[in-house]
Structure formats: structure tokens, C-alpha cells
């Protein structure tokens, strides 16, 4: 556990990191970035908390069970989005033209419309959820194991 200044700053900063990560995830179909990158940004916030506080403190608030459920859910959403196109072909982009995210942008350079991309934003979201949960679980598990403790089964 580091000094009080570090802990306070980390506590405030983690919110901004979280928001930035979610921004990157949400705009994956418009700007550089996407689920993996945004997820990694969020996990960097988790690592910062891990450095500022101790791993035991973090263990109390983050349960492995929750991370495991989040990760499986993210992966399942991704796979089910693939299955949903099965009326045509697996991974068919079935949301293009539908009310949700279905708009098609004008060909060529444009300023970007959030409600485009078909199932790509949803997939970005699913992957982001998966990456956040998965990498946090790995980082936490290794940090705890290095201190001679284990996460609960």
C-alpha cells in the first residue's frame, strides 16, 4: 500500500480512465480503437489501483466469481451475435438496415454517425466486457499468488 496522496489521486483518476476506456470501446466503429483496446485501457486503471492499494484490499471488493461471470457473458454475447446471423450465414451482419445501429454512412469521408455499423458496436461491447473481466482476473490472480494467497475457488 502506497502513501495517502497516491491512493487519493488513484481513486480520483480511475474514474477518468474508466470513462476514456468506455469511450474507446463505444466508438470502435468510428475511430481507431475498439473492444480490445478500450478494455486494455480500463485494465490499466485496475493495475493502477493494484499498485496504489494492496492486492488484498482489492480482493475484498472484486470477487473472482463476478469476473468469471462477466467474462463468460461477454464471450457468449459475441458467439451468440455470430449465431444470430445463422438465418443467412454465420457472422452475417444482420443488423445493417435495422433500427439499432443500422444506418449506412455516406460513401467516402464523413464526420461519423454513432448509429452505424450493424452488429460491430455490439461486438465491441461484448469483447470489451470480456477483456476487462479477463485481464483483470489474470492481473489480480498473479498479484495475489505472488503474495502467497489464492483467489477463492
Amino acid at each position, binding site marked *: 500500500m502506497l502513501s495517502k496522496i497516491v491512493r487519493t489521486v488513484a481513486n480520483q483518476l480511475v474514474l477518468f480512465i474508466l470513462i476514456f476506456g468506455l469511450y474507446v470501446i463505444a466508438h470502435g466503429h468510428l475511430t481507431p480503437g*475498439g473492444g480490445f483496446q478500450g478494455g486494455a485501457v480500463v485494465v490499466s486503471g485496475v493495475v493502477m489501483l493494484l499498485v496504489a492499494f494492496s492486492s488484498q484490499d482489492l480482493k475484498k471488493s472484486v470477487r473472482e466469481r463476478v469476473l468469471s461471470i462477466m467474462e463468460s457473458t461477454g*464471450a457468449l454475447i459475441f458467439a451468440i451475435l455470430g449465431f444470430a446471423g445463422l438465418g443467412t450465414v454465420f457472422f452475417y*451482419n444482420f443488423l445493417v438496415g435495422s433500427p439499432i445501429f*443500422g444506418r449506412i454512412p455516406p460513401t467516402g469521408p464523413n464526420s461519423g454517425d454513432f448509429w452505424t*455499423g450493424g452488429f*460491430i458496436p455490439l461486438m465491441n461491447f461484448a469483447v470489451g466486457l470480456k477483456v476487462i473481466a479477463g485481464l483483470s482476473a*489474470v492481473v489480480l490472480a498473479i498479484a495475489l499468488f505472488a503474495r502467497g494467497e489464492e483467489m477463492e475457488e
Partner: protein
Amino acid sequence: MRRAIGLILLLVLAAFLVSGMLLVHPFGAPYPTDMDDYIIENAQNQTGSNSVVASVVFDYRGLDTLGEATILFTAVTGVLLLLRAQKRKEGGS
């Protein structure tokens, strides 16, 4: 002895790789680009996404991304499996 043999073989391999790299198309001028041109032209219409990379990652090569997500899932599952709390009675080595 081992070091000398290793260095010689490594040099042979490196020579092949470097000389092979000289035969690749000049940097900055890829020559056939059929597949990529198709994607850059049609990505906006077919997937509705402004980011062509995102449309390749999730639509044109979606299965690769499912595989990639699966690999991440596999690795996380593997790490948590190996770092599990287990009964210490089975003994070492």
C-alpha cells in the same frame, strides 16, 4: 562447441531471412492489392462502419476475432486453472 554450432546455424538462418526480405515488394508499394481494395471500397456500404479496420476485424474476418477472443478466454481460464487454490496434500515433485 554448442555455442559455435548454434551461432553458425543462426547466421545461416538469418542470412536466408534477410535475403528473403529483400525480395518482398518495395516498402510502401504493395503489389497485388485486390482483396484490400475490395474491402476499402465496399466496407462502408456492406457493414456500415466508418472504420475499415473494425469492419475487417468484426465482419470480413469475424471468425478470426471470435478465435482471438477464444484465445484470450483460454489463456485466462488456463491462468486461473493453474493459480487455483488447491489442497496441498498431494506433495511436491
